[in-house]
């Protein structure tokens, strides 16, 4: 298990607490400049946080606290992580084979054995016939495979992937997804993937940590993250369109600028009359051609069709709230939806997820938790 707890204020703030089990693929997702790559660099030993603890299994790689400062910090070589850089970072003067041989330099093996192992990895990546080419003679996808082979050849303790698919075209990306999926099972090491692409994280990761401005906002399985974001910012970052505000009181949620009140699940965690943000997943929304007791009248403002999928933008007459609804072209025809016409929206209160408007991140509590972990 790779355990990472890091806290720093400068040069860029970081407050992260994540765990990644062997064989697990953990994605760090967030906008550009949110600190995802800094976390990866810290794990690899390329930079040091002010306070924290990084441990892989029984081995502590890094430890620092407020009182004593850094008490332990292994070098990148000692941590032995496989690191896949965004721009590949292949050694430009060495062939693909020589690049893959480099991590075996201090393995104690002779040159022939090192080459045999490196060729084996290039073969596994499907590029052994390109072994004698220089990096600039390879395509982006081929370079990425060489870089992946180089990251894995020394049997690393963890695999760290920094936006590995962002610089390659979509068909090549699919091939690399396949390779990564196959490797996961075989390697049985923690894999941490940094990406800004939520679909990619959803597709590949077992768990996702959403990072914003260096702070880990929520760690959850992809389906939980999309259904139940912890707070308003997470909902925004994971691209949940139907996010609204209201006031929650004892199982009743009143929608701002509207008389509509929803009966929602009350877990007893939120005090009465608390302003909250709330989201409704796609399966909690339905449209009807006629009004019923629970429907809200809305006007069709925009319909965009992409193949058999249509996205309908609605505006409620009361409160002027914007609602986005995704449907098949057939359903669109069944409902007779047209631009400018009114329709009736039903929101399933049981599917509503309520969250605080903002999360308070208390660094002091974090420091205490790091101290306890040490």
């Amino acid at each position, binding site marked *: 298990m790779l355990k990472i707890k890091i806290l720093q204020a400068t040069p860029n703030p970081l407050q992260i607490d994540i765990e990644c089990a062997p064989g697990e693929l953990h994605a760090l997702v967030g906008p550009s400049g949110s600190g995802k790559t800094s976390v990866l660099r810290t794990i690899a*030993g390329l930079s040091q946080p002010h306070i924290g603890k990084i441990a892989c299994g029984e081995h502590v790689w890094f430890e620092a606290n407020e009182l004593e400062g850094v008490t332990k910090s292994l*070098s990148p070589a000692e941590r032995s*992580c496989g690191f896949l850089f965004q721009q590949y970072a292949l050694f430009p003067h060495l062939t693909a084979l020589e690049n893959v041989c480099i*991590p075996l*330099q201090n393995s104690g093996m002779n040159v022939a054995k090192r080459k045999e192992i490196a060729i084996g990895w290039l073969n596994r990546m499907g590029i052994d016939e390109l072994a004698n080419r220089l990096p600039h003679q390879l395509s982006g996808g081929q370079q990425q495979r060489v870089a992946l082979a180089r990251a894995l050849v020394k049997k690393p303790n963890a695999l760290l992937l920094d936006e590995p698919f962002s610089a390659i075209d979509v068909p090549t990306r699919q091939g690399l997804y396949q390779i990564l999926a196959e490797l996961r099972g075989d390697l049985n090491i923690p894999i941490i993937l940094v990406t800004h692409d939520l679909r990619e994280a959803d597709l590949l990761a077992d768990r996702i940590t959403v990072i914003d401005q260096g702070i880990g906002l929520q760690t959850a399985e992809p389906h939980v993250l999309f259904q139940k974001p912890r707070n308003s910012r997470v909902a925004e970052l994971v691209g949940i369109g139907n996010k609204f505000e209201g006031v929650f009181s004892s199982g009743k949620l009143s929608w701002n600028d509207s008389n509509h009140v929803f009966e929602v699940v009350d877990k007893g965690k939120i005090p009465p009359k608390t302003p909250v943000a709330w989201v409704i997943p796609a399966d909690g929304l339905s449209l009807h051609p006629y009004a019923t007791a629970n429907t809200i009248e809305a006007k069709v403002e925009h319909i965009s069709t992409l193949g058999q999928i249509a996205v309908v933008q609605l505006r409620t007459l009361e409160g002027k709230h914007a609602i986005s609804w995704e449907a098949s072209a057939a359903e669109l025809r069944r409902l007779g939806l047209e631009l400018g016409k009114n329709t009736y929206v039903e929101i399933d209160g049981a599917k509503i997820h309520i969250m605080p408007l903002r999360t308070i991140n208390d660094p002091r509590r974090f420091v205490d938790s790091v101290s306890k972990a040490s």
Partner: protein
Amino acid sequence: MFDLEALFLSLKLAIWTLVLILPFGIWVAHSLRHLVKGKSWIEAGLALPLVLPPTVLGYYLLVGLGGKSIFGIPLVFSFAGILIASLIVNLPFAIQPIQRAFEAINPEILEAAQVSGLSNWQIFRLIELPLAWRGITSAAVLTFAHTLGEFGVVLMVGGAIPGETKTVSIAIYDKVQSFDTTGAGALSLILLSISLIAIALSYGIFGRSSSRQRGGRA
């Protein structure tokens, strides 16, 4: 007509300068890459011979190397003296191209080397040195050509003792002074040819290698 003695002395001086200054230049240039504090001052000091008039530099060296000199023995008007002068004069020519070459290496490549488990010495030997070799070649060519043609400082420190300090540039000057234009022309032609060959060789190597070297910063 040919002052072969002067020519060989110049070649000997250029080769010795090269042998001594290149390792030092590589070390200084590599250290400067990682230096933050005081870097500008050191760079300015190393670039000083570029802008200082040769007579001024020659005067200080004459004072510094004369008498018992800082090395305990008089070094003026000797081969050792002009070698020290040549080393100082060539510092910017040797260090700057190598420093630029080291700085042009993408830091991510060095980080990739670190996470690949290489030691600092291995990173230097296997990654940085091969990637900076164009700068090192450039420094070598510049130093060699510049030493062959150096006049002012060498004259100030060494005078013109045949076989000891009379380099080919000083021999050309002497020949012109004594109206031996044929001799001066022949030696000048040799210097010109050597310089042209050195530059052409260096550019030829660069031309062939330019497509290989893609590790630099954009």
